[in-house]
């Protein structure tokens, strides 16, 4: 096996910056519910807590590898290069949104930045990502697809069917199982047989004789290492792998589901709100990937405090600008609604 190049200092700093950008973006989405009530409609899901997994995985990208997550999808395109302005405007349902206001928070798509689209229906996008890997294989592009989905989604048939098919066809794809311990309001111990038995969810890979590993999803370097190995395997024609990244979602599943005219708002995390387990949530907060990665980089001398602060304030400014841009963007013209039905 060829020796793996270590991540450069610049790359590590880039990774930290991306994590911060995601966090700052999501924070502003969340704040919008308070500061601009009514501006965000429907159901919006945040990626705070997932930053290390998202960035650790995407840091391994090469050859324009596509990223295909679920409806909890704000973070990925931010890393791929999509303008936060467009993402925020989409979440606000504005004309300048990434999808012109047609898709919203759950349905971001930016094919130009190798983000082909998402689905709001559990598990189904795992098959789509597998299809993107088919394209890569047939067209011999050298790409590896990064497919992200939740722990809950592994209870959907689409997950198993896709993994078997990808293994049989040896498709170039890495399946990244984001185990954030919850599917919506349900703790994983209430619905997953592996979890109940005390086994890792990566064990599901054995149903397809596929490599399956579990990593600490709060550590971007651990995620990086695992995904990199899997991506190399995939790129060399050896087929898919399953990587379970364990972390904790830091906000509630999504904004509370309300019926108009009751305004939408963001509740407390389910650990507290539903299960009354404050200690569990407090412990998770302590493992927040961002301060931990920051501290580690500073400890290793990769990052100086001043640089960290600059990164943070730049991200804040960038995301604040995204909010202002989105607020200023007009709504789409009603009659345009009949566009885009057919190609």
């Amino acid at each position, binding site marked *: 096996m060829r020796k793996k190049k270590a991540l450069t200092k610049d790359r590590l700093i880039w990774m930290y910056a991306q994590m911060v950008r995601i966090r700052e973006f999501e924070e502003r989405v969340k704040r919008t519910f308070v500061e601009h009530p009514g501006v*965000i*409609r*429907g*159901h919006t899901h945040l990626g705070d807590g997932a930053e290390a997994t998202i960035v650790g995985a995407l840091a391994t990208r090469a050859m324009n590898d596509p990223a295909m997550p679920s409806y909890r999808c704000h973070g990925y395109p931010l890393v791929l290069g999509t303008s936060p302005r467009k993402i925020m405007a*989409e979440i606000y*349902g*504005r004309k300048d*949104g990434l*999808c012109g*206001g*047609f*898709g*919203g928070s*759950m*349905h971001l798509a930016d094919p130009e930045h190798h983000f082909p689209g998402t*689905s*709001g*229906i*559990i*598990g*189904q996008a795992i098959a789509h990502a597998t299809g993107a890997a088919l394209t890569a294989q047939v067209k011999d592009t050298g790409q590896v697809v990064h497919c992200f989905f939740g722990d*809950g*989604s592994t*209870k*959907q*048939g*689409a997950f198993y069917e896709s993994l078997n098919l990808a293994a049989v066809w040896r498709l170039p794809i890495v399946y990244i199982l984001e185990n954030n311990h919850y*599917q*919506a*309001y*349900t*703790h994983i111990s*209430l*619905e*997953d047989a592996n979890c109940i038995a005390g086994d890792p969810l990566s064990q599901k890979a054995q149903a397809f004789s596929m490599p399956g590993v579990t990593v600490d999803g709060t550590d971007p370097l651990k995620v990086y290492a695992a995904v990199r190995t899997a991506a190399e395997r995939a790129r060399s024609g050896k087929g898919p792998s399953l990587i379970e990244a364990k972390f904790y979602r830091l906000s509630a599943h999504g904004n509370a589901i*309300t*019926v*108009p005219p*009751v305004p939408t708002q963001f509740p407390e995390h389910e650990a507290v709100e*539903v*299960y*009354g387990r404050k200690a569990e949530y407090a412990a998770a907060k302590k493992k927040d990937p961002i301060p931990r990665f920051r501290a580690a980089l500073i400890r290793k001398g990769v990052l100086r405090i001043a640089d960290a602060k600059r990164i943070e304030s730049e991200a804040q400014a960038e995301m604040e600008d995204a909010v202002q841009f989105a607020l200023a963007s007009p*709504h*789409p*013209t*009603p*009659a*345009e*609604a*009949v566009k885009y*039905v057919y190609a």
Partner: protein
Amino acid sequence: MAREMMYGEAIGAAMTEEMQRDSGVVLYGQNLAMTERDPMLRKFGKKRVRIAPISETAEMGVAVGAAITGLRPIVELWMSEFMLVAFDQLINEAPRLRYMSGGQVKVPLVFKAGYGFAAGWAGQHSNCIYHTMMGIPGLKIALPSTAADAKGLMAAAIRDDNPVVYLHHYMLTLDKGAVPEDEYVIPFGVADVKREGSDVTIVATGWMVKKSLAAAEVLSQQGINAEVIDPRTLAPLDIKTIINSVHKTGGLVLVDQATRHASAAAIIAAEIAEHGSKALKAPIKLVTALDTSIPFSEPLENYVLPNEEKIVSAVKSVVSRQAATV
């Protein structure tokens, strides 16, 4: 005795009462009864009230298997579109097993789901897909528009020995109405005249009943007295009440939140075209969603969905053509 109740509450009341009445009724679904404090769990225990994984095929298939072996499952599916991942169970299993067995088994179950959530849920969560379930012999479909109907139809759904899809409208969840407190069972296949009128007939279901009643108020101020009918169940479908009304009014406007070719309105129009066309003094008119998926942004969403104004103007055009015929 009736009590003011929200539509959502009324559904829960019927479920609780029926579960008290019949120990064979079980309830499960995703994201319910998460903790011991859950009221249904406390009332009926862990055997009868369960949380399920995100596995609609298993959830619905388990209901079918449980039903043919003696339980009466209610599966909480939350949004009607989620059933699509398991549609075989709905279309090709539950309604077929009795027939294929030559009448040996029955399949008493309720698939409960909300629909039509026109509140920014975008392209995959807020469409109306009930037409996909029509014309499937063996399957019944209820879609209440009021709190009282919500209770009476749920009770009937649970008692029915056949598979029933019970579709509640998300936009009506908080709407209040008088609901009978005692046992209240609305027979399937009986349309309800929600407003009597003499000039034109409006047929609508779910949220569109509310919109049609609002439109009827506007129209009455303009001297047009519209009758508003809610079929309440799409299978069986009470065409007779509609034909009787059309015989009285001579005009028919069909309002449906679905797209045109996915609408129950089109099915009703076909029935009237074949069996009631003599009574019509003007062509039928359909008011449906435009032919798009539901867009996210509010102005787009509003544009594609039927509303009061669209209903009013459709009714007026029918009434004016009726007048031209006389």
